[in-house]
């Protein structure tokens, strides 16, 4: 007797339960490559200088971690794989190929999955592009950040503007048809004209997707130290708001739909991987300092590479912290993540997940936010208004109950 047949005989309750379980199967795989050839002034992700690092050991350890994790919970429902960093393209060809083979061991890339790798302009040689293509990578996320050489230098990037054009041209030649770039705004000394220039350059590239992030000065970064010494001439809040407003308008008028606070895509090219986070779905996370959300538990891995390797070597999973979310917390996250999307939070989906009416549970908060012009209800969806999108944090924090 096959599995489905046996299930067919069980009660409705069991099948409901099983349907619910599918919701909790991880939809995404994130893999962290914590090596960089240059440390950017704003970056606070887990990363180290590539030189002298045990890269090969690290890649082996990654494989072991995936093996162990997938043995307990096979990646049957996975729809997207994302390799981030650090700088994944800092790996040499041999290492890159090894990583690709590893992924192909566990994930059937022939299926309709989104398979993204982050890349630095300039790092992507034709050879590397071929390897990526060969092993199923179908989306590139390129860390462009700016089209102004002075700004690129000021934020600690080591590529030049011309590298951007070259890289994208050669990626297209290799047959990549889903390319995204990251842009940054509200950078030190950046002007509104500069942002406008960057947008125009992006439109000329005629690619599929763009993430435009405002600079956030995080502790333990070079920028943070500069700021504390009063040596970081950031644009004012008003200028930053004007930049954001302009980006949103220009993107829309050029056919790039804003589907999240910082993300814009041509029709059919929303990033599935990003949406896994905002939809509050489950995901695997592998590598030093990576985060995952499995079985209702938010986990983070050990950050320092040596400690990560040691944990794997001792046959353990390299978990630093594991937080089991209460239902209350899960609902809070459903809201503050979901509202980041232009589509917003679906009342139906909320009910499916939690068996609670969202408008009832957050009645007071939602009424107040609607009154303040920050939130709107559009049939099934609860959404930010335009004003709400500018002041998202004010909205989000309302959904964290005391």
């Amino acid at each position, binding site marked *: 007797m096959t599995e489905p047949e046996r299930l067919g005989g069980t009660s409705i309750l069991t099948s409901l339960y099983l349907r619910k379980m599918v919701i909790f199967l991880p939809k995404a795989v*994130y893999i962290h490559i914590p090596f960089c050839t240059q440390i950017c002034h704003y970056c606070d992700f887990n990363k180290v200088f590539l030189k002298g690092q045990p890269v090969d050991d690290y890649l082996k350890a990654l494989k072991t971690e995936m093996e162990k994790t997938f043995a307990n919970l096979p990646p049957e429902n996975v729809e997207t794989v994302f390799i981030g960093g650090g700088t994944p393209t800092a790996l040499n060809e041999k290492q890159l190929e090894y990583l690709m083979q590893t992924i192909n061991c566990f994930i059937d890339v022939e299926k309709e999955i989104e398979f993204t790798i982050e890349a630095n302009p300039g790092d992507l040689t034709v050879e590397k592009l071929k390897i990526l293509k060969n092993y199923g990578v179908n989306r590139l996320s390129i860390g462009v950040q700016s089209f102004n050489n002075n700004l690129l230098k000021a934020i600690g990037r080591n590529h030049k503007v011309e590298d951007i054009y070259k890289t994208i041209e050669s990626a297209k030649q290799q047959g990549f048809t889903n390319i995204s770039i990251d842009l940054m705004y509200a950078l030190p000394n950046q002007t509104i004209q500069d942002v406008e220039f960057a947008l125009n350059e992006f439109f000329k590239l005629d690619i599929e997707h763009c993430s435009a992030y405002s600079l956030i000065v995080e502790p333990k970064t070079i920028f943070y130290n500069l700021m504390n010494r009063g040596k970081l001439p950031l644009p004012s809040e*008003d200028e930053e708001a004007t930049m954001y407003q302009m980006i949103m308008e220009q993107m829309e008028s050029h056919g790039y739909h804003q589907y999240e606070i910082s993300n814009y895509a041509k029709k059919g090219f929303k990033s599935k991987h990003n949406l896994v986070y905002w939809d509050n779905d489950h995901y695997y996370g592998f590598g030093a300092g990576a*985060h995952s959300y499995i079985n209702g538990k*938010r986990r983070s891995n050990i950050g320092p590479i040596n400690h990560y390797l040691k944990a794997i070597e001792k046959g353990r999973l390299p978990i630093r912290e594991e937080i089991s979310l209460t239902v209350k917390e899960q609902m809070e996250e459903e809201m503050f993540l979901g509202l980041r999307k232009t589509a917003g939070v679906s009342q139906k989906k909320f009910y499916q997940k939690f068996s609670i009416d969202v408008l009832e549970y957050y009645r007071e908060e939602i009424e107040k936010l609607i009154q303040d012009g920050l939130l709107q209800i559009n049939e099934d969806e609860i959404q930010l208004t335009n004003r709400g999108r500018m*002041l998202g*944090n*004010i909205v989000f924090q309302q959904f964290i109950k005391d």
Partner: protein
Amino acid sequence: MNREEKLKRQERIRNFSIIAHIDHGKSTLADRILEKTNTVAEREMKDQLLDSMDLERERGITIKLNAVELTYKAKDGEEYIFHLIDTPGHVDFTYEVSRSLAACEGAVLVVDAAQGIEAQTLANVYLAIDNDLEILPVINKIDLPSAEPERVRQEIENVIGLDASEAVLASAKAGIGIEEILEQVVEKIPAPIGDPDAPLQALIFDSVYDPYRGVIALIRIVEGSVKVGDKIKMMSTGKEFEVTELGVNSPKPVKRDELTVGDVGYLTASIKHVGDTRVGDTITSAVNPAKEPLPGYRKMNPMVFCGMYPIDTAKYNDLRDALEKLQLNDAALQFEPETSQALGFGFRCGFLGLLHMEIIQERIEREFKIDLITTAPSVIYHVQLTDGASIQVDNPSNMPDPQKIERIEEPYVKASIMAPNDYVGAIMELCQNKRGIFIDMQYLDETRVTITYEIPLSEIVYDFFDQLKSSTKGYASFDYELIGYKPSKLVKMDILLNGERVDALSFIVHRDSAYDRGRVIVEKLKELIPRQQFEVPVQAAIGTKIIARSTIKAMRKNVLAKCYGGDISRKRKLLEKQKEGKKRMKQVGSVEIPQEAFMAVLKIDDK
């Protein structure tokens, strides 16, 4: 003990304090003395052992007093009993210092070998002289490269008029000169006089509240003796109690059956309120009372007032409980309920000074976990009304309408400032700006002066000390005493946010500087109040007349751009932190105001 034994013991008692300017090494010297007399084993030494509260250790100041009994085997072969009484090191607590000095026969005067005499040194020395103490000068920190012991010795002789020829050259830190100091204590400080059989007279110089034993009074027996079980009476109030426990701190409490003339120790008698054991009061026997109390008792009156409001209005009762608990330990703290239109229900609290205020505030937030909004400190104004009545106003928002006021008087202090003569110009300018009246200037030596001004207390409680420090690079020292009330041309300034008067932001200002202050304060408030969802006008007004205006712009962008690579916990923490920050603010009408804004009036840099 019989009378003979008591008298013999009395001869070997030495009671003394250490007095010094802040940072001149008082606590370190106390620590060394405890070590040297084996009162505390070296391994148990925590730095600054006598400062027992966390807050005291952190701030390096003494708030509550402490008295320790030590035994010292002197070179003459006799074993002596020392009582070392700690004194608070701040001008707010001058009265307590004077009472603890009254419990001594001598004082070790510590002067920094590099810095020389400072304002507090002088203030404390005068208190010691008032109490007829034998003063033993010690020149401390002689191991510092910048030490000039001879110059300081001269200074002690010239400025204070003490014979400093036998001043001990010491370094408490390095353990130099400690034994010499102890020998001088034995030789020079007189043994306590007094008759063990006379009616009891015990001086209360501090009291602390203990939840199990009630109030613990620190006392010095001046006449007679007291035993466990004795009926005692407080001479200022007439209240009677039965002694339940006696003892000394060494420094751990050691119980005794009896305390006799010259002893410094503690007493408990099921006393519920520290208000019943007022500092400076005399304890006597209820059965055989002394004819007269000891001299010098006075009730302490607060000089500085502010409103304290819980940010979370539901915590009003918790705040009252906290204030009551603190008051158990601190008879100088006063409070009564008050209501503010802006802040709701709270308390108007009275303090000895600014430091006292800050300490209470910090303890409420730390120990009782109540987030507070504190209004800017105010003094008590005496207001003569046109109808002939006179009232006292301790809250600026209660100042009557100008047309009803005949005259306002405000408290003045005599401020003594000591500094190198390079800073005379800067100090005088500051004092003039603070409406000071020049009284006197004297040279201590060729390079150092002491400048005396009469200044309104309200100017002192604002940012005087901070400004003094910054305009003299920290070289000036400062002390003040209240001298009485003088008439001033004062007006009440109101602040309006979004067109609504916020009573908790009102303050009293001199008419001549009202316009300047108004302009500065609206700018300051614009800086201190974060952008709101809507534009908020800020106005300063005298009566109905608006004299200054600024605008807090509407918040335009506040949204996290990044996704932190799936680190949702981090996102949550950021949002929780923002929400927490919001909770620290007080919602007044539609405007959220942070605590700092209520202190804005203190932060005005006079231009």
